[in-house]
């Protein structure tokens, strides 16, 4: 753990100076601030940010995460030639990536809310859920990015896969679910739909955010089922656990791959 922390600390120092991460922070800041100026109230800003977080955060985590691991390859070799274990190296690399990306999100979205705190009621609870979901999504999708980059030697294929995963989670998945619902509309679909929701981290993020807002109608099909059949309390717990698993399982698989692989 000590070694992992040290690697994390230096990776962090590297990444916070990375112009893409700085750019990511600035874009989030500008967008959130713009929403405040256009929309006004905190509630509406959060609802608009919701889709932004669901689409933008996984995209950045996946693409930046895979590229990062490919670029760091020679340096990883150099560090592994030091008395550094592979587990510690993996933990340090992932923490060193996920931490600054989460930081960017917290600053980019949180700061405008702090600045506008005086202008009326800020829905603190909803904001915390939004930021928490963003952090969990960052964690899950950087873990997936590492897994992808470790699976494919070739950068172009790895990067392509990362984009496909994002496209699949963000766009294709819900479409397929709707199609399935139409085709099998004569059958009871609640259980399959619940399972389908658990299988997509983006859907889980949406469920977490929207269950709290109590706007089930906006949730899309999977979200609506989630609320109707589990209720808010159980639904939140289940969605949260599943989303955590979306970080834990890819990380576990990634560590195993990292420990066995040849550099």
């Amino acid at each position: 753990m000590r070694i992992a922390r040290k690697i994390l600390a230096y990776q962090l120092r590297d990444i916070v100076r990375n112009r893409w991460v700085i750019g990511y922070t600035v874009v989030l800041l500008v967008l959130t601030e713009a929403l405040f100026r256009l929309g006004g109230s905190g509630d509406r800003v959060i609802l608009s940010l919701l889709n932004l977080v669901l689409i933008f955060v996984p995209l950045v985590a996946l693409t930046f995460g895979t590229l990062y691991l490919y670029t760091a390859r020679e340096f990883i070799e150099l560090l592994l030639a030091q008395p550094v274990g592979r587990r510690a190296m993996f933990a340090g690399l992932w923490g060193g990536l996920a931490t600054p990306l989460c930081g960017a999100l917290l600053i980019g979205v949180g700061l405008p809310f702090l600045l506008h705190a005086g202008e009326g009621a800020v829905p603190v609870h909803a904001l915390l859920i939004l930021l928490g979901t963003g952090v969990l999504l960052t964690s899950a999708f950087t873990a997936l990015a590492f897994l992808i980059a470790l699976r494919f030697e070739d950068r172009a294929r790895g990067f392509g896969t990362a984009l496909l995963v994002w496209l699949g989670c963000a766009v294709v998945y819900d479409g397929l679910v709707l199609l399935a619902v139409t085709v099998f509309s004569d059958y009871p679909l609640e259980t399959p739909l619940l399972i389908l929701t658990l299988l997509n981290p983006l859907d889980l993020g949406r469920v977490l955010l929207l269950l709290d807002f109590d706007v089930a109608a906006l949730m899309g099909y999977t979200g609506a089922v989630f609320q109707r059949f589990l209720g808010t309390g159980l639904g939140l717990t289940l969605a949260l656990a599943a989303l955590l698993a979306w970080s834990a399982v890819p990380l576990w698989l990634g560590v195993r791959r990292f420990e066995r692989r040849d550099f």
Partner: protein
Amino acid sequence: MSVAERRTGGPAETPCVVAATAVTKRFGRLEVLRGVDLEVPAGRITGLVGPNASGKSTFIKTVLGLVRPDSGRLTVLGQPVNGDERYRRGLGYMPQDARFPENLTGREVLEMVRDLRGPGQTEDVELLGLFGLETELAKPVRSLSGGTRQKLSAAVAFLFRPDLLVLDEPTAGLDPVASGLFKEKLLAARERGASALLASHTLSELEELADDIVFLLDGRVRYHGPVAELMRLTGFARLEKAIAALMQRGQA
């Protein structure tokens, strides 16, 4: 990984710094190492030569623990290479093309390596001075030239007075002056008892530095012995011709 296995590796004062027995490695269908048997003696500079794809890099990477052999036994500095990272405290590695996190400064890179090694290591910063790197250390790595990065990499390799230096084409990116300083440093390290495994295509350099030559071909060791012996055997006075003769013989 077991404790028992670690103990049977014995103390570090074995005369061999690297001992490989029937080490094999394949990548997919490609058999890169086909049973490497090699004992690299301590206190000597051992030149590793061979044509491209002969398994040089792969062998170096198995010594560093970066590549895991499929079968065979490998001990480095008296300890079995089995996933335990501690034996690497005695290693200094200089890769062919060194890359560091681009936004860190040279000083931060050194600090990081130092930090990872932990306290209690005696340091040798002579190369930093010889290469005139002090002013460069304040700049982020991304703004350093390829040659300067190589110099930094060399300084990192020698920083902890390693018992075994693993050098992969070390002078390829260095200018003649730096290259000369590097060679002197390597010879001085040998004087204090360090060993080196030096992969190089520059045979004149090996002639200058190496005590022994290991010739790899198709994933096997085809020759291992003192440089002078190699020349006597092949009847050539230049290492270049002697190696060429070995390669031709190997292909015949």
